[in-house]
Every structure is written in C-alpha cells, then in structure tokens.
C-alpha cells in the first residue's frame, strides 16, 4: 500500500525542471530587462514644450549648433536658452532668410500666435527656465566630453541617432559602458572626416557610415590618423572617463 499516490513520483522531476526553468527565466529576464538597453534606450518623456527636432532640424534645416552652441567648446552640449527660441519666434519671419526652407508659415512671423507655443511664450515672459526633462544621462561617476568627441570626428549621429527625425526626442542607444567601449576599441565605424564640415548633417553622416566597407576604408584611415603614435587614440583606460 502506498502512502503516496504514484503521480507523486513525478514531483522531483517536475520540481527540478521548474527550478531550472525558473532560474533560466530569472537570469534571462534580468539579463534583458535590467540592462541599460532596456531601461535607458527608448526613454521618451513628455517635455514642457512640445518641441520637434524633426520640424526644426530636418524640415527647416537648422544646424544643431544654432541652438546647442557650446557643443564644440564644452563638455556639455547646452540646452538653448529661451532667448534662443525667441530669436525666431518673436521677430524673425521666414522671408528674412534664417530658414533654409520656407514651410507653411511663409509670410508670417514664426508661429507668433500659435497656441502650441503658449508654454514657450510664458517661459519667455516670466524668465523662468523651461524645465526640460533630461534624456541622455550618464551616472555621476562618468565624465563625458562633447567637445572632445566632435574634435575627433564623431558625429552627433553616433550617440544620439537620427535625432533630426524625432518629433519627440528619445534615447536611441543604451549609453552603457560596453556600448562606449565598443566604439573606443574600434572607432573606425563612427569616425567622420570632419574637414568636410558636415559632422552635424545627420542624414549625410548616416549615409557615409552605412556605406559598405566604410569601417575598413575611410573609417580606418581616419582612425589610423587619429591614433597615429597612439596620441589621439580613443582611450580605454579607467581614468579617461571615471574620476
């Protein structure tokens, strides 16, 4: 007479399998969901002003550096002051030539009366800063320098993606340490000939970098030039970023 019914014989096997499955699930779940790629990439918060890079950068063709003025001078690519916005939105109209492509607003001052810009106008009037939500954020113990990267010939595109196509900005890349090091170890994939002066022309950059064999031809030439006598090679030691 059996105290336990026969089906109980399968319990150990079932338990083992469940445990194994559980472990795999936890590990792979953690692997995927606890990575910067999951948590960081794709972050797209709502901003206080519904500003569209797609409209301004792509359609109107405004250069990145018109607003992010210090990107070549400072480690921080500054968010423009409200005044920078108001340069166009108060006094300049399409026909005065600041805009490459005149759009639907031709002939009028730039959305001077638009309701969508109510928020901008109120910030401009009050003098309070617009509380932009920060999207690309590295931990405090990581030091990143925009100027150094542009100087080396790394385009905005390499880290931020086609930000000129984003109506609402989101984080495209994980910005994890591995992701940084991948490029620092083989920069040829991301180097652009900066003498052409088109580092901020993201469409052109994308086209260049996506050419077949770019990394082995032009890219590697640039990388070689950069790292000549190892003086300008992208650093991979700890104190390059952590201090």
């Amino acid at each position, binding site marked *: 007479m059996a105290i336990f019914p026969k089906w109980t014989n399968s319990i150990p096997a079932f338990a083992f399998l469940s445990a194994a499955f559980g472990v795999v699930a936890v590990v792979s779940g953690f692997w995927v*969901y*606890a990575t910067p790629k999951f*948590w*960081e990439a794709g*972050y797209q*918060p709502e901003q206080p002003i519904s500003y569209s890079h797609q409209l301004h950068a792509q359609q109107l063709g405004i250069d990145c550096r018109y607003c992010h003025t*210090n990107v*070549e*001078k*400072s*480690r*921080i690519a*500054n*968010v*423009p*002051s*409200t*005044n*920078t916005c108001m340069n166009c939105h108060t006094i300049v109209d399409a026909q005065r030539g600041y805009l490459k492509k005149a759009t639907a607003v031709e002939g009028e001052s730039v959305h001077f009366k638009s309701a969508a810009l109510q928020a901008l106008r109120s*910030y*401009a009037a009050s*003098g*309070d*800063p*617009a*509380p*932009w*939500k*920060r999207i690309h*954020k590295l*931990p*405090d*113990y990581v*030091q990143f*320098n925009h*100027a*150094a990267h542009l*100087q080396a010939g790394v385009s905005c595109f390499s880290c931020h993606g086609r930000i000129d196509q984003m109506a609402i900005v989101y984080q495209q890349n994980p910005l994890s340490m591995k992701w940084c090091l991948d490029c620092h170890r083989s920069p040829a994939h991301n180097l652009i000939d900066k003498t052409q002066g088109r580092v901020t022309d993201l469409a052109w950059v994308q086209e260049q970098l996506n050419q077949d064999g770019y990394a082995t031809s032009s890219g590697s030439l640039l990388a070689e030039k950069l790292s*000549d*006598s*190892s*003086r*300008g090679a992208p*650093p991979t*030691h*700890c*104190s*390059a970023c*952590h*201090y």
Partner: protein
Amino acid sequence: MSNAPQCPSSVGHEPASPGLATTGRAYWSSLDELAQTNEFKEFAQREFPAFASEMLASDRRTFLKLMGASVALAGAAATVPGCRRPDHRILAYSKDPEHVIPGRPLYIASAMPLPGGGCEGVLVETHTGRPTKIEGNPLHFINRGTTSVRAQASILDLYDPDRVPGILDVQNITCVTRKSDSVGEDGLPERIASGWDEFDAYINNAFHRFDAADSNGAGLFFLVGKASSPTRDAMRSRILARWPQAEWLPYEPVDDESGRDGSEIAFGAPHARRYDLDKAKIIVALGADFLGDDGGVAETRGFAAGRKVNEESTRPQLSMNRLYAIESNLTLTGAAADHRLRAKPSEVERLALRLCAETLRRVSAGSAMADTAARQGEGELFNGDAHRNELAEEWIVEAAKDLVANPRAGVIVGGPGLSAPTRALIDATNEALGAGGVTVYYTEMTGDERESSLRSITRLAGAIQARQVAALVVLGANPVYDAPADLNFAGLFQSVPVTIACNDSQNETSVHALWSCNRAHYLEAWGDVRAADGSHTIIQPMTEPLFGGRSDIEFLARLAGSDVTDGYELVKATWTSGPLTFSANADKAWKRMLHDGVLGPRTAPATPRVNAGKVAQELGAWTPAATADLEFVFKPCAKVSDGRGANNGWLQELPDSITKITWDNPALISPATAKALGVKDLQKGLKAHSGQNVTVTIAGRSVVLPVWLSPGIADGTIVLTLGYGRTHCGRIGDGVGFDVYPLRATDSMRSASGTLTPGSGSVEIACVQDHWSLEGRTYYREADLDLFSERRSETQTVHDAYGRTKHLNFAERLGEETHTPTNETIYQEDQRHHYDKGPQWGMAIDMNACTGCAACTIACQAENNIPVVGKSQVLNGREMHWIRVDRYYADRPFTGAEHGGASDAQTGMGDVDVAIQPVNCMQCENAPCETVCPVNATSHGPHGTNDMVYNRCIGTRYCANNCPYKVRRFNFFDFATKRLNGDYIGKSVLGGVVKEGHLIPPRLREHIEHGAGAIQIMQYNPDVTVRSRGVMEKCTYCIQRVNWARTEAKLDGVWGDQPGEPVMPDGYVKTACQQACPSQAIAFGDILDPNSAVSKAKRSARNYSMLDYLNVLPRTTYGIRLRNPNPAITRPEVMDPFQHHGGAHEDAGHNQNNSAEHHDEGHVMSLPVFGNHPEPRATIAAALQHGIDTMITSAGGLA
C-alpha cells in the same frame, strides 16, 4: 609592524630607536614614537585604530551635524539597480549671460581682503555663476598665481549656512535680526527675524537725533575691523562728514601694535614693512614667523626663491640664503631656519637687542644707539646656564658678522612680540645694513591701518564706562569674544543702549546686539582693496548675496544717508571720479583693472630715513620686561586666525603645520618644562593621544585647558593659541577647543607671565602626527649645502636589488639604495607596462622650498570634493586629506653632555630640527595596490597614473593595506548622502513604506534639507565624482585637470602630434597642490619631455624616490632639503651622511641575528608569484628563514 626594518639589509634587527634613517640622523614624528610606547606601536601596527571599522555610536549627533555642514549630498544617481532614474530637469538660462558656457569654468579676478588690511589677489573659478575654487591671480604682485591656506578655505565660508541665524529657509532668508525682551533657554535674549527695510526705518528714526547741531554725532561710536579699502575710507569720510563728533575706531584683536608704534618712533609716522626676501642672502627672524602668522604668500615665495640652488652652476660652492631664527614657539620659520635659538619671549627681546647692537657696532664703531641697545639687552639668560649663554653669545656674534658681510643682501625681520623700541631699533639696523629699498620696503600707513587697535578698544571701553556711548555700530568685529579680558567688554557691550552688529556670520557680539545684520562675503559684493605693496584690486561679486547681506560700503553708505548705496556705483565712483581717478580714459582703465584684477602701486615705495636720535632716546627711556620663570605666548591660530575661521570645517580639520593637531588648541609646552612642572607624560600614566588638564593663571584670571608636549618650544614658555572655544559661531566651531582670550589683557597682548598648575583629567586631542606612520623607514633626506656643493657630481654605480645597474646620485647615496641586497620582483620586465609614449605624468616635490604651510592640502580638498570627518573620526584615523604634510622632528643635541650632566640626544627634551615632507599618492609604476585589488578598481593608465575607479570599488581596503606610503583614504561613512526624491519606478510602492519615498532616514533627511546640505553642495567641483560610503579614494594627480587639458590642448591647437614632441606645453596643466603652493615646491608634468620642469627636477642630484628599494617606481619623487649652516657656529656633531647606519657599513653588520643562515639573498619583499624565477623554492626558503610574514607561507603552498 613597529619592528619593521629601516633598511632591507637590516632585517631581523630590533631598531635601537625610531627611524635611524638617512643622513645619520634619527627622525621621529612624535614623542610617543621616540619612546616607542606601547600605544604608539599598537597604533602604527593597525591600518586604522581599533574600532575604526565599527559604526560610530557615541557621538552620532555631532557626526550628523558635521555631515550636514561640510559635506553634503551628491547629485542623485540611480541607486535602485535597473530602475529608471528619477526625472532630472535641465534648467537652461532664460537669457544667456555673456561669457558663461555651461561645463566650462569661468575665472574672474578679484581679491580676498585680509584681516587688518592688505589682500590676496585671486582668480575665482565659477561654474555657471557658482564659485567653487579660489586660485591665485598670476598677475597680482602678492600672489603670483599662488594662494595661502586661508584664501583656499575662504570659499567654504561663502557657503557657511550659519552665516544667518536659525534654520535656513531658502525662500525667506533672515538677514537681519532684532533682540527681543524675552530671554531664551540659553540665557540669551531671543531674536526676532527682521529685514533690511525695518532696519533702515529704525536707523532713519533712531540716528536722526545725532544730526542735531548740539549732538553732531557725539555718542555715536563705530568699532570696525581694519580694512585697506579706498571706497570704505570714503564711506568713513561720509560718516564723519555727517556726524563730525562720531568716533571711528578700527580694531583687530591680533594686530602688530609694536610694528606700528616702532615705525612711528623710527620714521615719525606709522609705516608698514614689506620684505622682498628673494633678494636676501642672510635673513634673521627675531620672534617673527614670516612664513606663518606674520607673513603671507609673498614672504614665503621670496624665501623659497632664495632657497633654490642653481645646480647648473660650475662654481665649486653653491649658494642659497641662510636663515637665523630666535623664537619662543616652534614656528614654520623656526622649522625652516638653518640656525634656531629658542628662548622665552623676554629673552627673545634681549637677544634681539644684542644682535642689533652687535650688528650696528660692526657697521660703524661707536654707535650710541648700539651701546644703549647692548645695555638694555644685558643680563644672564637661560636660567643662568653658562654653556647655553656662551653658545648664544657666539650665535649672536656670528649672525651679526654674517649680516655685515653681506651688505644690501641681509635683512632682520622683527616680530610682533617684540616691543616698539626694539622694532624701531631693527629698522635702524636694517637701514645700517642697506636693506631699505632692497630687501625691506616701507609704505606709510593710511586710513584704518594707522590706528592702534589696542587704543581703539581701550577708548571704546572707557567711553562706555563713562556713559558716553549712545549707539555703537560694530562692523566686522567680535569684541565680546576677543577684547582684552581686563576691559570686561561683554558686560560693557550690554550696557550700551543701541548696539548694531554687522558681521560675516553670527558671533558672540551679534547675539547680544540690538540689531544683528548679515554682512556680504567678499565673493558676493563689490569692493576694493589695497595690497601690502600698494597695488589695488577691485573685489568683484561672483553671485548675488546668498543670505541677503550687505557689504561694508553699502552698509555704511546707507548709514551715512548717501543717495547712492549700490556697491558697484560706490566703487566705480572711487575709481572714475574720486581722488584715485585714472588720469585718462577712465572707463577703459576701469575695465582693464576689473579684467586684470590688479592695478600697480600708484606711488613708488619710499625709503624713509630712520630718526636715529629718537630711536636711541626711546630705547634708553624704556625698561625691557623682566624674565619670569614661566612666560606665556599668545598667538593667533595659523588656521582659524583670531577665531574668524572657526566655523570652517576645512580649517578646523587641517592639521597644524607643526603640532599636527586638528580641532583643538591645547597649551603647548616643551617636554622639559612639562617635566619640571609635573605635567604627566606618557611614561607617567597619561592616556595616549590626550592632554592633561592644567589651570593657567595670569594676573588672577584662570582658564582650564589641556596641555600638549611639543618639542622645540623654549623651556619655561607656554604657547596659548587664540581663536578657539567659540560659543556662537555655528555648528562646526561652537565648543571646539578652549578660549584663551580671558587670559589676555591690555598689558599682555602678546606675552605674559603667570603660573600653570597640573589638574585632574585629560582631554583627547586629535593629533595626526602618528597617523600614516612609515614606521621609521627611510623617508626623509637632507644634507648640508657645503657637502652637497663638494660632492654633488659624484655618482656611485651599484647593482640594485633587482640586478640592474644604477648610477646613484648624491641624494640616492644618502639612502639604502647603496646597499640593498638582491631581491626578486613580482613585476617581470616583459609583463610590465612600458611607459614610452607621452605624456607620462610625474611630480617632483622640492623639500628645500617647501615650508610646510599646507596650502596644498586645502587646495586639494577644495578641488577634489574631499569631505570633513570631524574630531571623533580624526581620532579614529579617518581623516581624508589626499596630500598630507608629514612633520618629523630630529634631535639636535645642542647642549650635549655638558648640559645637566646628561645628553639631550634622543629624548626630545632639547633642541630639535624639523623635517617637513608632503606626501601624496606616488602613482607607482609597479603599484602594490593594484595587484591586490580583487575587482580591478584600481589600475594603471597608459600615462602612468594609478587610477581609482570609485564605482567599481567594493571596499575591501586591501589596497590601503598594501600601500607602502599609506596614502589611500577610505570613506567609512556615506559622507556624500544620496537623495532619491524624483519620479522612479516603484515610487508608489516604496512611498507606502517610506514617507515621501525617501530612502534616507527622516532625521538625517530633515537635517540635510532644512539644515546645511543644500547650500554646501554648491561648492563641489562638478568635474570630480562625489564618493560614497565604502569607497577607497586617493590622490589622482588631478586627473580631471589632466583630462580637460588633453581636450583643451587639441581644441586650442597646441597638441603636439608629432612623435618626440611633447603633447602639450609644459605647465599647460597644473595640479591643485602645485598651483596653490606659495613656495612653488611642486613640479608636475611630462617626464618624457626632457625640457619640462619636472624632468629637470628629476635630473637633479638632489632627487630621490621614497622607499626606492621596494621597486615600486614611484612617479612622485623628492628633492632633498639642503641646510646652509654657518660653519663658524658650533654645531652638534653630525655623522657622515653616507655612513647612515651609524657606523662603518658592512652587510654582515645588518644581519647579526641570522648571520649563519644568511646567504645574502636579501629579504624578499615581494614574491615571485608568476613568471619563471629560477629558484623560487630557494627564495621562499630564504624568506622563511628571515621570518618575514605569513604571506610567505601561503605562497610556499602555491609553489
């Protein structure tokens, strides 16, 4: 290990005494080490003292207070792993200010006014309008790019939350308070929050009566801190124009009264003296600490420049300046001196008189003044000790001869402790030596400086007593705390009907005042100031007044009822329409002055003639103070000054340059005097690291305070340090140390006689002299100039411990490099990094120039966000300074066996020499810390820096254990508190458990948010990570500056990209310590560039590596100190420095204990854990024989 070998070849020896190091001399850091007490051995043996790793329980409240105040929260990094971080806002400017680029510092030229007049010219580093660091202005004549300790620390005063009373409420700052009629719990009147409007209305009303024709301001008194500001002088004129009968009394508690009075005797009007020491060959300091309390960065720089030896010179005899010092306390000047006499204050005066007399006689025989001086200086000294009197006589004669032999290149510097006639005599002697206009300059004092502080405060006290004072305005002074005790000023102050105090922060005076106003810090207000050399600087504000304060000039302008009360307008008016107007194009000149931060002296310095007759007459009519058995010296603290720096955590925690005491001011006493007075020492049952309580009585006034045995102080002298025992300065300084102002009276402002009675009990003293002990290993090297001149080009070729051929220079021959037995290294040549590509960073510290002022320590603290830990933590050995300044004593058995029948040698009882050595991370190429880190948190960069990755560190502290230089620091607490109050995933869940979703305990949070923290984080350098609990940290060679310079050099187009070319110009990057160093003792740069300053320093025959035999290849090296003694003066016998084991050197001599087994493999300091060593087993066997430590055993198992 206390029995660690001094030298690798002396394994197995018990050291006979501590640190029989190099130069044949014994160096010791403390009397405990000298006596090798059990406490010292135990302390040194532990990396940190007992219980250091345990959570602090007893004094949690103090700890929280400190944490909130000097240390605060970092920006909130994501701490919940994987969670989306809290929302961060980017708040851009609404309108971009000109020149401000976020992420790039902006340097603005300004000046820090010094108490009593004068200034330091500074450049203030600001980040988007937030000042974070003070640097010296390279264009300023005083600073020349360097800074003092106080200038470095002044940035923290700006962010001192205790500048305004009560709890800081950012929305509603209480910048003015009024006394109420009710009395609070502390026995003081409660204060009512008020504002400037109310204050102005009150003044309009209450001061109106002084306008009446019968008053004209009679009864209105101003007690003001001295300032040398043209605009403030103009405000004084306005005040006195409105109220001609009002009295303006400039007052500083610690002032050079005798200097002022002495120059009045000598020149007929008060003159300020300024010394150009770089032109002096012979310097005699008579009770003057010109490298410390009585001088500034200019004196230090000048002195250090004269210490530099031109080694390129082909002349057989090299030259540098020679410093003689006579003093009571052991000061930095005494520490730097080639010849030092210690004597009681009254004896210093006598010796000074004799020295001047001797010098004057030698310049011109038959000088009447010399005879008078000699007569006044007569008498037995040193308690009638004939031998010492004889030596002192010889000393005086030889010093005088030396001065006379170097015409126009000698100078005598008189100290404030001397009397006025003696100071005048010194001026006369300097004139006779031709020093005027060469090494000493005189400028006639103007404005506040002309007035005597002592007369001011005495006059005020007298007027209050006579009920003449109707209203008293105290501006930038704290007389209730620091007025002479016999005036009983605290009581008098409260009897004045209307008292108004306007001070940088609340203090003992302001809590009693009817009105207390907040004065603006120099970084937040317009002003101007005249430097000691007569140049002027405009003080520019970096920010709006954080606490709504008004500057001196704004405050006074309103009182005077001026139409213009704006600081900028007032200052600009002085310079563009006042008497100092630029002759042409005033507007352009004004802008130039703002930009440069300095405008040269308007008038050339004069060389006034000394009125010899008057000096002789005054000298003859005066009676020098009689010598007492026990004399007391009052001196301002080198850190907190007269007490005004007491609420500055950096200053409080900075070890005193000589005593190495933090957070305290015990009475200093020489060991011999302590013995004579029956003060307990360690042999007689005193608890380690504490001072016995004593009662000091001077003229019937007593204070109980602890006493600290400090070698090198004159026997029969007690040194009392002012500036401590504050009761109302804020959370940092309240109750720190002991107030000795109650002992100081109008007749004893600098010294006094009295009694000292040992009492019961003791006070723990946080003295760091035994911390980070190198336990007697060879660290410090020095030599006499003559020996160096003679033998500097000799080299010695040896095969070093690791089988390499080395050519040892002079400095290396002084150490153990000459006889290190063979050894193996775990660093196989082929596995080592080859540092052949530039830049390779290295540092050279010139101990010949270093005076020990510790500006480097504070500069480093400001630059690198180094926290303050508090007294209890310092007692636990947890201070965090990345660059420490070690101070060692070495006995100088000056009196020898003749003195009392017993030798002074090795007791610390007699004369001592002082050795000073700054120690930061050596950035070893073979870094021992890196090999033991289990997580690779510390590793080597390609440019030779030993990098520390905070986010990788798990806090095992193995690295600190393995560091031979003990330069690593551990965060035992979360000094940088994190805050998590934004939006994050799981906030709703967490919020249910923790109030408001905060992850920090409520009490601490309350303190941080409503207390100090919020404001203090503004000081942090945004380029440096704020470290958290459980993380190791150490000097990084300011890697943030190095990295920024790399980028900047490329952006600037100065990056050298050709092979063999230096990547950036030498000096393009400076470390914080190097930049601040007033004596320019630190060189930093690319060691592969043969033309860099650091390469040149490293090629010097004076250059050596500390603990070279360990083969860790430190990047920081030292230049030995040279002493320049006068050969004519009898000195104790100094052993041949090349025979530095105290006798003829033979290897066998080192190995007596195990000579039988000793095969001269040397002792294995490192293990062949990898690589193919031919005979690892033999080595290990040898190591076991030597019985070094247990690590060998485990390695044997591996093999």
